[in-house]
């Protein structure tokens, strides 16, 4: 659930988002996201296609785990408050992976009379590899 308005207004640098964990990622997750999101690139659902491309198996479309991360961003900062959300894909996510989602406030400042928070996020695999680095800016008061 969304952070309450008063808690949000008191956010300050180095405050951390409540950590989330999702996993293991299944092939059903990928097929379900393919249908819901409309991404039917066979590299994300067709085992044979993935092997022919030299991979061990299919891997997740980045927008799947970007979407999982968006739950943390919207839940913590409030969907309507988010002004900007940017994701950078730094590694692949595979079936069987367990993902950990973290966020931290980098700075809080005022712009045009609005109190804004710049935050950073990561999506990390059980191996420690980072699959996404992300940033978001939200109006917090």
């Amino acid at each position, binding site marked *: *659930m*969304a952070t309450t308005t008063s808690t949000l207004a008191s956010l300050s640098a180095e405050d951390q988002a409540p950590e989330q964990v*999702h996993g293991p990622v299944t092939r059903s*997750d990928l097929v*379900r*996201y393919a*249908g*819901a*999101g*409309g*991404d039917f690139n066979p590299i994300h659902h067709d085992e044979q296609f993935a092997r022919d*491309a030299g991979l061990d198996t299919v891997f997740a479309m*980045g*927008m*799947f785990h*970007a*979407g*999982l991360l*968006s*739950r943390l*961003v*919207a*839940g913590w900062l409030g*969907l*309507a408050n*988010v*002004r*900007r*959300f*940017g*994701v*950078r*894909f730094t590694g692949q996510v595979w079936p069987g992976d367990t993902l950990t989602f973290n966020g931290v406030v980098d700075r809080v400042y005022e712009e045009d009379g609005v109190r804004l928070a710049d935050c950073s996020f990561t999506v990390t695999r059980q191996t420690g590899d980072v699959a996404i680095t992300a940033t978001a800016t939200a109006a917090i008061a």
Partner: protein
Amino acid sequence: MPDPSQVGLELDEVTFPVERGKVREFVRALHEHDPIYQDADAAAAAGFTAIPAPLTFPMVAMMWRERDAAIEDLGFDFKRLLHGGTTWEYVRPLLVGDEITVKRSVAAVNQREGKRGGVMTFVTIDTEITDATGGVVARQTDTLIQTGA
């Protein structure tokens, strides 16, 4: 291969209805359990005038094409194409009932030597998302990377 002469090129435009069923399907695929995305009363209690769509939902409109001809026409080799990242700037939340128009153009094309040899090409695609009144709802920027042969 994409090249800098393509900067400024308008790619295409697609109109997409934001429907409750699609939003529900999308949030279930993301294991998102916040009731604001499925229940009009919960959305209203949270201050929304209709059920909102999640932050990454504009991507669904991007996929609202039979095939991505505009991207193919830029000269990408799909076997060597990576999605580097996406940034959204939101003017307001996307809501069920919106009919959005998504218009894409080429913002930048940069080339540099890859670490393992070959030229890497970075293409920045800007997308403007407007509602039925013509007002901007959000802007999206994607980085596509063509790796060296």
